[in-house]
C-alpha cells in the first residue's frame, strides 16, 4: 500500500489567494465574514464571507465565476509542484454541492445551460483548461463532499490507481443557496458562533481550495511533510435535514478513523470540527466527540473565519488544519464566549503550542452523512 503526501495546495477565499495568506489571517483572528448589501443575493443586508472580484488569468473569458474560482485555485496550487494534470498518472477530483447553479434564471433551462450546470461537464470544463488527460471525478455529497473527496483521492492513490491527485473543493454563494438556507431558518443574523451558547445558525461563505496529493515522497511539500491518513464515513439513518440526536454515528466514524490509523485519543493534537453553529449540529458533534473519548482534545470550528463554504469547506478547513499542524499550533474557536453544548468537549480558546503530530478533521451534512480523516506531520 502506498503512502500519500501533500505536494502543494491553495485556498481562494476572502482572506487571501494562497493557503499561506489564509492561514496567517486565521492565526491573526481575521474573518472573511462581513455585512453585505447585495440585493442579487438577498433583499436585506446579510453577513457572509464573499469573494471580491476574482483576479484575471490567461484566457479567462468564457468561464463562469464558479469555474474561474476553481481554475484560479488549481493554477495557484499547480505552480508549487511539478505535478501536472496533463499526465496519465494524475486524476482530478471536484467536490461541490451546487457548482454552476447560479446559471439558473427565471427563463426555461436551455439544453446548453443544463449541460453547463451538470457537474460532470463543469468538471470537464475545468479539467480541460489544464489539458487533463484522465476523466475527472465529481463528488457531490452535501457538506462532507470536501472530506470525502480527499478520502477518495487517498484511496485511489493508496491502491495505486494514480500517482497524483488534484482535489478541488468549491462552491459559490448564489441566491439559490442563500434563499434555501434562509427558507430553513438556518442562517444567523449575526456572524456565526460555533459551539457557543448563543449560536443560532450558520453564516454562508464561498471559496475554492485545492490539495495536490502524491505517492511520490520526493514531491511532498517542505519544510514539514504531511501524510494523508485514512478516514471513515457513516450515515445517521435518522433524518434528511437534521443531525442524529445522539451523535453515535459521527462518534463511530471518528473512533473507527482512530482505529484505522492506529491512534489513541491522546495522540491527537486537535480536532477541526464541522461546527456550523446551528443548535442541533454542534450539539450532535459534542456528543460524538465525547463518545469517541475525545472530550479532552482541543477542538475548534473554522466557520467563524470562512463561513460555511459547503463543498469547499472540507478542503479549506483541511488545509488550515495541516498548516497549523506544521506550525505546531492549535488555533482557537472564533466568536466563542460561553459553553453551549451538552456533550463534553474542550473548546480551544487561544493559540496554543502543541507537540503532537496528528490532527482530526470531521464533517457532517444533509442526508445524515458524516466523515472524518486524520492528517499527520512528519519530522
Amino acid at each position, binding site marked *: 500500500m502506498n503512502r500519500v503526501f501533500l505536494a502543494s495546495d491553495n485556498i481562494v477565499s476572502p482572506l487571501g489567494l494562497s493557503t499561506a495568506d489564509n492561514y496567517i489571517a486565521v492565526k491573526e483572528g481575521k474573518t472573511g465574514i462581513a455585512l453585505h448589501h447585495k440585493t442579487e443575493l438577498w433583499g436585506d443586508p446579510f453577513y457572509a464571507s464573499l469573494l471580491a472580484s476574482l483576479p484575471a488569468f490567461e484566457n479567462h473569458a468564457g468561464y463562469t465565476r464558479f469555474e474561474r474560482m476553481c481554475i484560479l485555485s488549481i493554477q495557484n496550487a499547480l505552480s508549487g509542484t511539478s505535478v501536472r494534470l496533463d499526465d496519465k498518472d494524475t486524476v482530478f477530483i471536484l467536490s461541490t*454541492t*451546487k457548482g454552476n*447553479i447560479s446559471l*439558473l434564471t*427565471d427563463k426555461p*433551462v436551455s439544453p446548453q445551460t*443544463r449541460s453547463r*450546470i*451538470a*457537474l*460532470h*461537464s463543469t*468538471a470537464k470544463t475545468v479539467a480541460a483548461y489544464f489539458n487533463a488527460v484522465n476523466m475527472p*471525478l*465529481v*463528488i*457531490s*455529497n*452535501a457538506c462532507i463532499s470536501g472530506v*470525502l473527496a480527499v478520502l*477518495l483521492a487517498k*484511496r485511489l492513490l493508496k*491502491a495505486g*490507481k494514480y500517482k497524483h491527485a488534484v482535489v478541488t473543493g468549491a462552491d459559490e454563494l448564489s*441566491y*439559490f443557496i442563500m*434563499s*434555501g*438556507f*434562509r*427558507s*430553513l431558518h438556518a442562517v444567523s443574523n449575526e456572524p456565526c458562533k460555533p459551539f457557543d451558547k448563543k449560536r443560532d445558525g450558520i453564516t454562508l461563505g464561498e471559496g475554492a481550495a485545492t490539495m495536490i496529493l502524491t505517492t511520490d515522497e520526493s514531491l511532498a511539500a517542505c519544510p514539514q511533510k504531511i501524510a494523508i491518513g485514512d478516514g*471513515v*464515513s*457513516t*450515515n*445517521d*439513518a*435518522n*433524518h*434528511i*435535514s437534521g443531525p442524529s440526536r445522539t451523535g453515535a*454515528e459521527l462518534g*463511530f466514524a471518528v473512533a*473507527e478513523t482512530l482505529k484505522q490509523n492506529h491512534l489513541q485519543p491522546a495522540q491527537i493534537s486537535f480536532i477541526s470540527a464541522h461546527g456550523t453553529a446551528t443548535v442541533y449540529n454542534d450539539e450532535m458533534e459534542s456528543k460524538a466527540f465525547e463518545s469517541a473519548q475525545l472530550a479532552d482534545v482541543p477542538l475548534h470550528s473554522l466557520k467563524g473565519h470562512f463561513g460555511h463554504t459547503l463543498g469547499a469547506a472540507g478542503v479549506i478547513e483541511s488545509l488550515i488544519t495541516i498548516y497549523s499542524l506544521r506550525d505546531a499550533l492549535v488555533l482557537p474557536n472564533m466568536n466563542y464566549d460561553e459553553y453551549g453544548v451538552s456533550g463534553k468537549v474542550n473548546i480551544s480558546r487561544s493559540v496554543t503550542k502543541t507537540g503532537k503530530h496528528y490532527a482530526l478533521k470531521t464533517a457532517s*451534512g*444533509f*442526508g*445524515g*452523512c458524516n466523515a472524518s480523516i486524520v492528517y499527520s506531520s512528519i519530522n
Partner: protein
Amino acid sequence: MGTDKAISGYVQIKGGRVMYNNSLFFEMPDAEPVVFFNDIYKALNINYPKFFKMDNLCKVVFLAVEVLLKDVSLRDKYKPEETGIVFSNANSSLDTDIRYFQSSLEAPSPALFVYTLPNVAIGELCIRHGIKGETACFVFDIFDALFQAWYADTLLETCGIKACISGWADFYDGKFEAFFYLVETGSDNLSIKHNSENIDKLYNQVWKN
C-alpha cells in the same frame, strides 16, 4: 481479492418496466412518472408515507431499492454500520433544483430545498433500511461500471462493509432510469461475481430484454 464478492440481486427501472433479477416485476408503458411511481409503490404492498414527500429522484431510487431488497432483510443479516451505499447519477438534483428555484422567486420552499442535493437519496435509503455504514454520491455523464465496482470493492475490503447497495439513478424533466444491485461478501450464491464486466452486462442486458 474480490473472489468472494457476489452480486446477489439487481433491479432496473427503465422504459415503463421494473425488472428484478431479470424477470418482470412491474410494467406500465407510457405512464406519467408520478402515476408510474405510485403504482409501483402500490404493487410493493408497503406502508411508508414518507415516500409521498420525496422528490422524483428519491422516489425512483427508493422504489428500485425497495424491489431489490423485497426478499432480503439487511437489518437481519448485518449490523447497521456493515452496509454501505455507492450512488451515482448524471444530473445531480437538477430537476428539483429548477422546481426549488422557481418556488424561490415567489416564496422559497424549504420542503423542496432539502431535496436539492443528490445524496439526500442515499439519506432516504439509510433511514428506510437502517443503514449506517459508508456511503458516497458521485456525478458522471454516463454509468461507469468500472469506477462503481472499484469503489464498492474498496468499501468492502477496507471499510468494514459486508454488503453494499450500488447503483445509478437519474431523473430530469420527466425522463428517468434506475439500476441498483446488492453486493455481498461471503454470499452462498456466487453465480454472479462482482466485477465491472458483470455489472455492465446486467446494466445493458436487462435493458434489452
